[in-house]
């Protein structure tokens, strides 16, 4: 089933258009900076203090990650997961997959794996394009940490990749929510919009001070904890709590998706 998803994705224009669009983000960052000033730190688009450490070509992958995290990543995870089951239902292929037979549990697991693989592919692609573009324009060198020490370029790349991995974890719960809604409806657009809305609303609520009590329970509350990777030593506390939140959201909604789909009448 996973193999089928990959074959189908590789045969769609959509995949390549999205890939080109994602590659455009780090390239745009590098080009706009090259045209305006020559100080990479001016291009820091993520949390403002990141500007302090972005002194060479490594700024490009990190800034690009910071750009895609709040909106594009949840959007991608939400659209793909919302479409996962509801899209098959509205295309009329769901019933034919189930009678092949692809087991219902297997179908959900493989669909989820495909969504997460796509998100991972997107993140890896953005980091790779950013490294090449940033490296070509500004070279790659040691990077200061937020704590004032310096780390080698290899160490920096490793931490950028770790930041990407943490971001992937951050949308795992969004993908699970999307998949759950996708099992409840035959309308792919509706199922795709819902998880994106969850991500947006969560980020808005997280910015309203008077709602401080609910903040720790919001799916997006610890999304920015990856910045702790660029301290010396790395502060794991925030990311550990974030990972726990992501794991709980993922487990709850993936469980709900499985439960809902196994019991559901497929009438599409």
């Amino acid at each position, binding site marked *: *089933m996973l*193999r*089928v998803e990959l*074959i*189908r994705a590789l*045969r*769609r224009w959509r995949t390549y258009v999205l890939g080109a669009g994602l590659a455009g983000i780090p390239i745009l960052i590098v080009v706009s900076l090259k045209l305006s000033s020559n100080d990479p730190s001016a291009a820091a688009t993520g949390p403002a203090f990141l500007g302090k450490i972005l002194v060479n070509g490594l700024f490009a992958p990190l800034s690009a990650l910071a750009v895609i995290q709040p909106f594009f990543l949840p959007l991608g995870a939400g659209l793909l997961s919302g479409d996962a089951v509801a899209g098959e239902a509205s*295309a*009329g*292929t*769901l*019933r*034919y*997959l*189930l*009678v*092949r*037979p*692809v*087991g219902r549990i297997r179908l959900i697991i493989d669909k989820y794996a495909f969504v997460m693989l796509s998100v991972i592919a997107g993140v890896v692609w953005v980091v790779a394009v950013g490294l090449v573009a940033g490296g070509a324009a500004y070279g790659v060198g040691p990077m200061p940490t937020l704590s004032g020490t310096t780390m080698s370029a290899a160490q920096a790349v490793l931490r950028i990749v770790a930041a990407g991995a943490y971001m992937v974890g951050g949308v795992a719960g969004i993908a699970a929510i999307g998949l759950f809604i996708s099992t409840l409806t035959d309308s792919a657009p509706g199922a795709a919009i819902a998880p994106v809305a969850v991500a947006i609303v969560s980020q808005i609520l997280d910015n309203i001070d008077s709602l401080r009590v609910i903040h720790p329970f919001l799916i997006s509350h610890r999304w920015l904890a990856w910045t702790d990777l660029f301290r010396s030593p790395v502060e794991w506390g925030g990311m550990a709590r974030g990972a726990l939140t992501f794991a709980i959201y993922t487990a709850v909604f993936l469980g709900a998706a499985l439960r809902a789909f*196994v*019991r559901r*009448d*497929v*009438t599409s």
Partner: protein
Amino acid sequence: MNAIVTRSLTKRYGDTAAVDRLDLAVDEGTLYGFLGPNGAGKTTLIRMALGLVLPSEGTVSVLGEAVQGSEGRAGRQRALRQVGALVEEPGFWKHLSGRRNLECFAVAAGPPSDREARRSRIDRVLGLVGLEDAATKRVKAYSQGMRQRLGIALALLGAPRLLVLDEPTNGLDPSGMREVRLLLRRLADEGTTVFVSSHLLWEVEAICDRVGVLAKGRLVGEGRPSDLRRTGDRVRLEVDDREGAVRALGAVEGAMVVDGAGPVDGSLVVRLSPPATTAGLNATLVGAGIAVSALIPEQESLEDVFLELVGKRLEGDGDDDASS
């Protein structure tokens, strides 16, 4: 062995029962035609047999495996591996070619199979439905008839022991319909059980070994097409005094006027069951002073049987529904 068995199988949506305490047995190796008006519950029954819809009550087993409910999961998977199905319209990924669609479905269920064997099987089923030339075109560009053919090809892909086809000739032109009918007949002759639903009576009558008639979720008639037709001899009468004839026949045991209006003013159709006979009918009419100008034995068409069976069920709404 039975290919499909249901025991008081019921599916309720709210207060209405789409399938209502249905008992059905389809022998292996037969071509079974399943008739019923729209909304009779044909598709719901098929979906329950394929494990897509969960029954409210009762059981359904396919190729000897109970398939309903979560406890039926393993059995359902085993059974479905030997089943090919077309459920309502065919469904495909439109941006892929016909051949690629079949490949995707073939690998979806895993385990990984021999690539060459898979390719040659796909070639074979595409050939069976006459789609070799359009195999590399995207399904987006297919006509409705071509999609229907591809749907049948998909059903045949796994060389199934049981073929479940819901309205397989939908959207086909007359020659396409004929090809499909011949194909189904041939598959059945080769030992495949074919369970085919249709609202086209002549189509079912032409090819099926057995026919079941479904109305409002219940089986209202079943048998070989010829047996269903022979449930009573029919005679068309042409008389000079229609009213008098109807009155006179009312006294004859086993004679029932089933169709008053005919092409001619004084014509009526009478169904005979023992002890009534055609000769006795004639004698009665003549005895009553009615001139009989024609007395024509008629074979009942399956359509008549169908309309009568379904009509009874629709009229008798509620008479046997005490428990639901």
